[in-house]
């Protein structure tokens, strides 16, 4: 026991010590640094401002909103010490199912010719239900079998992609109702992203659900002995993640005004990257939604920054990869510095 600790005991009236910057501060600095770098390069290379352009900022957040919605769910899975590889495929399945129930009556090749012009609630509920079902499958596999989450969700990932293709035998689903298309119009996806982020930020920090999620990730054995129903809780977390992937699928198809079996390709990896850049630890017990939101925005800044500078997309991927790895390395240094003791 360090002497410094030995001298003092707990004071209930001042439970929160001045603990310096929150853990997101470092990653927020990275976000700001990247944005300023593009601003500077913008003036030098294309003689334009990167940030002082409202339209660009909206597009920037818009294009990562879908990733962000998925990342909010994936962050929770990662906090439990798991992983969800199925998100991208679940986006495709929900996009297909939801779009098939959102076709307007003038669609030439309606999937369900008798079910056109349904109220917008029908495709939305169906999409969320499909996402929840996929999440339930993930959760049940993780909770009740001993296979690792990586393998369980890999299986669901492959199967879900297959279901998306089988559903219309590869045909895209188009001619969707205006009410459905409105879900993806303008800044609505951004609102959905920030709304889900807010809800689950509160859930993780202030509810029993959140406390149990962190506890399970930090030590599943201890969580079980503490009286937490670990299996049931894991199913809830994976189901939430699946439902959010479903929501992402609805937004994706609404934005594109069509459903395609190839949608959401690699989204799971972008979402995992956003969570990890934001400080979530793949060994569980650590991660915050605020960090994930910042991580998502970093991905957005990099994508639109390169487009803005008219640099090839190849470089964009190279840099994105480097940022992901750098974020995890930085994170490990932080934990090592905090964890070492005599």
């Amino acid at each position, binding site marked *: *026991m*360090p*002497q*410094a*600790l*030995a001298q*003092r*005991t*707990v*004071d*209930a009236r*001042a*439970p*929160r*010590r001045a*603990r310096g910057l929150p853990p997101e501060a470092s990653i927020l600095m990275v976000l700001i640094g990247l944005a300023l770098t593009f601003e500077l390069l913008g003036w030098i290379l294309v003689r334009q401002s990167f940030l002082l352009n409202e339209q660009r900022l909206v597009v920037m957040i818009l294009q990562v909103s879908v990733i962000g919605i998925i990342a909010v769910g994936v962050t929770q899975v990662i906090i439990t010490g798991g992983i969800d590889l199925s998100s991208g495929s679940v986006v495709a399945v929900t996009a297909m199912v939801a779009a098939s129930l959102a076709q307007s009556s003038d669609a030439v090749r309606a999937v369900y010719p008798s079910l056109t012009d349904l109220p917008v609630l029908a495709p939305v509920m169906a999409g969320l239900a499909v996402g929840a079902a996929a999440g339930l499958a993930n959760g049940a596999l993780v909770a009740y079998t001993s296979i690792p989450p990586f393998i369980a969700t890999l299986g669901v990932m492959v199967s879900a992609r297959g279901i998306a293709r089988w559903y219309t035998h590869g045909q895209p689903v188009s001619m969707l109702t205006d009410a459905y298309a409105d879900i993806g119009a303008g800044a609505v996806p951004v609102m959905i992203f920030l709304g889900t982020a807010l809800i689950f930020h509160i859930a993780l920090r*202030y*509810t*029993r*659900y*959140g*406390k*149990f999620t*962190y*506890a399970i990730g*930090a*030590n599943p*054995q*201890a*969580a*079980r*002995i*503490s*009286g*937490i*129903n670990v299996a049931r809780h894991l199913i809830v977390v994976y189901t939430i993640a699946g439902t959010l992937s479903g929501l992402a699928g609805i937004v994706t198809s609404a934005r594109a005004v069509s459903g395609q079996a190839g949608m959401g390709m690699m989204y799971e990896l972008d979402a995992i990257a956003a969570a990890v850049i934001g400080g979530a*630890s793949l060994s*569980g*017990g*650590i991660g915050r939604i605020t960090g994930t939101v910042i991580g998502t925005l970093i991905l957005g800044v990099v994508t639109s920054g390169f487009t803005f500078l008219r640099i090839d997309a190849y470089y964009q991927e190279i840099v994105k990869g480097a940022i992901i790895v750098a974020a995890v390395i930085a994170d490990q240094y932080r934990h090592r*510095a*905090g*964890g*070492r*003791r*005599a």
Partner: protein
Amino acid sequence: MPSPARNAPDGCLLQVSHLSKAFPGVVALDDVSLRVGRGTVHALIGENGAGKSTLMKIIAGIYTPDAGELRLRGAAVHLSSPRQALQNGIAMIHQELNLMPFMSVAENIWIGREPVNACGLISHRELRRRTRALLERLAIDIDPQAEVRTLSIARRQMIEIARALSHESELLIMDEPTSALTERDAEHLFAIIRELQAQGKSVLYITHKMDELFEIADEVSVLRDGRYIGTASPLDLTRDELIRMMVGRELSQGFPSAPARPGAVVLSARDLTLAPQFYDIGFDLRAGEILGIAGLIGAGRSQLAEALFGLTRASSGRVWIQGCEVKLDSPQAARSHGMAFVTEDRKDTGCFLRLSVLENLQIAVLEGDFVRCGFVRGRAVTQACAAMSRSLGVKTPDLHERIENLSGGNQQKVLLGRWLLTRPKILILDEPTRGVDVGAKAEIHQLIARLVAEGAAVLMISSEMPEILGMSHRIMVMHEGRVTGILEREQADQVKIMELAAR
């Protein structure tokens, strides 16, 4: 390879002078000096946080000191990695064993140094031969081809010792080697240590257990709060004098005597069986009573506790709580019947190491008044946890400190506090003071006595004889999964327990 010829004339193998080491915010070692003679067993004692581990880790090359020097066989050495320490003949056996469970004993010992045949491939025959020779030298009877995961903790530790010796080490550092061993296994370990000593090796031995050091140590050094207090021969010191050196204050050796006022039977079990772990277990536990469970490691005591708490399910048998028959098929069910369980392995099954003290305290009590519509009532919970933390005397800068930064004793107090917040009627405590320093140990004993005086019933598993004898009102002894006897406090002594436990 170091040769004995380079031995310093005065027989001193290792000399540590004026070592200091600080970590952010903490001075872990402050101007510590120490000499370890050749062929001696040098014990190092002190409360948790006294700096023992830091000193060991510096000698083993894991940490580099901020100031001071190490002299090995008279020559100054600078050790910047465990590998360098090994090359200089210093090997450390950590408290947490570092073996690869799915590899054989031989592969574990010679990893990275496997003998090769003419084609440059690993020669398994030569590997086995060398291993056998090494194990024979230590009188350890283990099959070199056995997979490590199939071996007991005691045997794994012996393999670690063998591995250390395979480097021709001159100095072996052992960090609380007996903390997970039964008395019989510990005796075997001491025999090995004496054998090493006869071969001229030196051992630096960290321990919390006084009895051990009187048994095997030639010299004992005491550290307190990062400072060197003194070195003496155990022959010249009494136990109380040593304890006084460690804590810097008088400490009564006695146990708090919980008044024996047993009330109604709160927990009874009949014919509990879970083959092959335990068979036909039956006992009654009364309110206001401590029922100690003694036995050797492997007697099925922890497995019995796990089944009682619903972590596993007994295949047959019946359990009653306060007269009503109950099905304890999950920890939730056990908790709802007022049970609490502090496990034997703090790190593996107790603490959420990455979370704060507060989060560790509150996790079992998030229900009832502390939760409204799923939302945790943060202020109420924090207040309750702070009050609990204070009443237990948990030493932490504040409730938001990560629990992994606390000493073992304080972690244990937090784990007890986690369950006390649920106001349990029946506490199952598995090795409640393992790896806890002397001061915290006494505090935990007092706490248990207080709970029992207030009417709680305690089922206490312990491998430490003094603890079992000093604390329990009755002692249930187990051997190979069966109850071999239940002794009243007055009739129990060490010999009787060992007879029942080891028969």
